[in-house]
């Protein structure tokens, strides 16, 4: 792997996830704490219009728009704001898949789920992110194209911190996110300067699917995340454990055959798609050593 020279940090890909927005705005005013000697760091705001309105998105979710379909579509008059924006971001920090693209992009997110601090990486083949010390969630389903903003760069990851309500800044999560970015940038600096990071084994969570809310015929959800599942992100969910509770008090149990690990339990933004949580399996991965060329 070549040393990294251009790194981007994005806040506000979703305009109501405030830790990253406040951090990016601070760094745009005063980038000093991002400076490292061996590479350049560029902070930016992902979705300015959504940030201004303090909403997740204006037309469509920016963080699902970085696919070939949208990036290479021809300009049209009535296209969603985020499609135009994605093409601009791809121009500035990409183009995705090309040699000119930024070396690395960090994307800062919050969740209403109790996920603590989590790194979201596309797959275990992204070597550099796997070396950063934090719980890791591998989000890409087999055969799926990458669609997130950080996929524009040659490598990237998302930081997901929660629980935090949308539109709220909590000082504790703000500090934590700031500290992790500082640590990650220190890591890149050490890597660039030739530090050898030996091979190691790590446990990480790999997505296998999504669990939808039960719904009435009219599409409204008919049950809530069960109190025993609420806030239990990354803890084992076993067959026949309760997962939902109806408004009349009945329990709905998990019907899978094996233990899974849920995440994004009761994430506000996923009600739109009626997704109650994401299902994951825990795997041990052998990560090869890392050293710059």
């Amino acid at each position, binding site marked *: 792997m070549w040393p990294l020279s251009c790194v981007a940090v994005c806040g506000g890909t979703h305009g109501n996830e405030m830790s990253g927005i406040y951090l990016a705005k601070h760094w745009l005013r005063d980038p000093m704490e991002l400076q490292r000697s061996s590479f350049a760091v560029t902070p930016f705001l992902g979705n300015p219009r959504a940030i201004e309105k303090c909403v997740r998105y204006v037309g469509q979710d920016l963080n699902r728009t970085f696919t070939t379909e949208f990036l290479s579509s021809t300009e049209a008059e009535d296209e969603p704001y985020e499609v135009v924006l994605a093409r601009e971001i791809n121009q500035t920090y990409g183009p995705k898949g090309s040699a000119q693209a930024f070396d690395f992009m960090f994307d800062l997110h919050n969740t209403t789920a109790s996920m603590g601090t989590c790194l979201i990486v596309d797959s275990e083949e992204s070597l550099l992110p796997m070396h950063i010390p934090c719980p890791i969630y591998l989000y890409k389903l087999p055969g799926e194209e990458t669609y997130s903003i950080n996929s524009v760069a040659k490598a990237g990851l998302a930081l997901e911190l929660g629980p935090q309500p949308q539109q*709220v800044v*909590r000082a504790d999560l703000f500090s934590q996110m700031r500290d992790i970015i500082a640590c990650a940038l220190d890591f890149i600096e050490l890597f660039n300067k030739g530090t050898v990071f030996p091979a190691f084994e790590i446990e990480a969570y790999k997505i296998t699917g999504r669990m939808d809310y039960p719904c009435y015929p009219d599409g409204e959800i008919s049950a809530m995340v069960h109190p025993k599942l609420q806030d239990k992100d990354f803890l084992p969910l076993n067959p026949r454990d309760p997962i939902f509770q109806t408004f009349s008090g009945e329990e709905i149990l998990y019907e899978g055959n094996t233990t899974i690990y849920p995440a994004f339990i009761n994430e506000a933004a996923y009600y739109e798609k009626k997704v109650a949580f994401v299902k994951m399996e825990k795997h041990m991965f052998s990560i090869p050593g890392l050293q710059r060329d």
Partner: protein
Amino acid sequence: MTSCYVVHEAPVRRVAIFGGTHGNELSGVFLVKHWQENGDEIQRTGLEVRPFITNPRAVKKCTRYIDCDLNRVFDPDNLGRQITEDIPYEVRRAQEINHVFGPKNSNDAYDLIFDLHNTTSNMGGTLILENSRNNFTIQMFNYIKNALAPECCPVFLIEHPNLKYATTRSIAKHPVGVEVGPQPQGVLRADILDKMRKIIKHGLDFVHIFNEGKEFPPCTIEIYKIMEKVDYPRNKNGEITAVIHPSLQDQDWQPLNNGDPIFLTVDGETINYEGDCTVYPTFVNEAAYYEKKQAFVKTVKVKLTAKGIRSSLS
């Protein structure tokens, strides 16, 4: 037994339960929708209980409001405004609601309205009182507090010459705000819904028992009276320059003393509370109040006494 210290109050026959005054505060939305399908648990003999979604367009979009905050427009000016094409949706809606459940300040108005809300602040199950002289409501709050004990049920009095706002529920003779948190906007937590449900259950039980003729002796409850709103520190462009300090975050209803930290700037500087008396902050870091320039609200602890009451028909 009657006593000259007992006030005879009219029986309470018409009750409404409002959900979705803010469309992204989901406990009330889902409870009301559930009760509209199956209202058994909210029925009591001798009274009509009507569950109602107040801001359906905001509920559909899962947003606080469409044009303006519905819970601020039940003042005489807005209620009497002429309907034109460009009138805000919520003002038009307020007039419709006033027509069905009011008119406000008239004899035809509903006796009692429970207005269901959530907050991102760590307020627990808070009851909101509008009038310090409403004996019926204070007695109800006393009943609910005792029923939920040892669980805490703070009572928040919003009576204030400038800070009181014209709420949706204010059209009733006895307005009751139910504010349960913490819950993010757009999220439905089973534990928070359950807490709200219990408050309503005890509230309705009280009404039923009152109507049946039980005399409630004078009672005194501890309440938190609104004093002042505190905004975030801002720069000359109006941008927020500090966030709620970790020591204050989630500490709603806990004493705040002179010198205690309240804000933390991005540069790590602490800003402390300066005041000559202990205050009890609430609505600490409520998402919807960033735009209302409110980081938290200062309250003082006060004892409020209600006269004894008895239904006038018994």
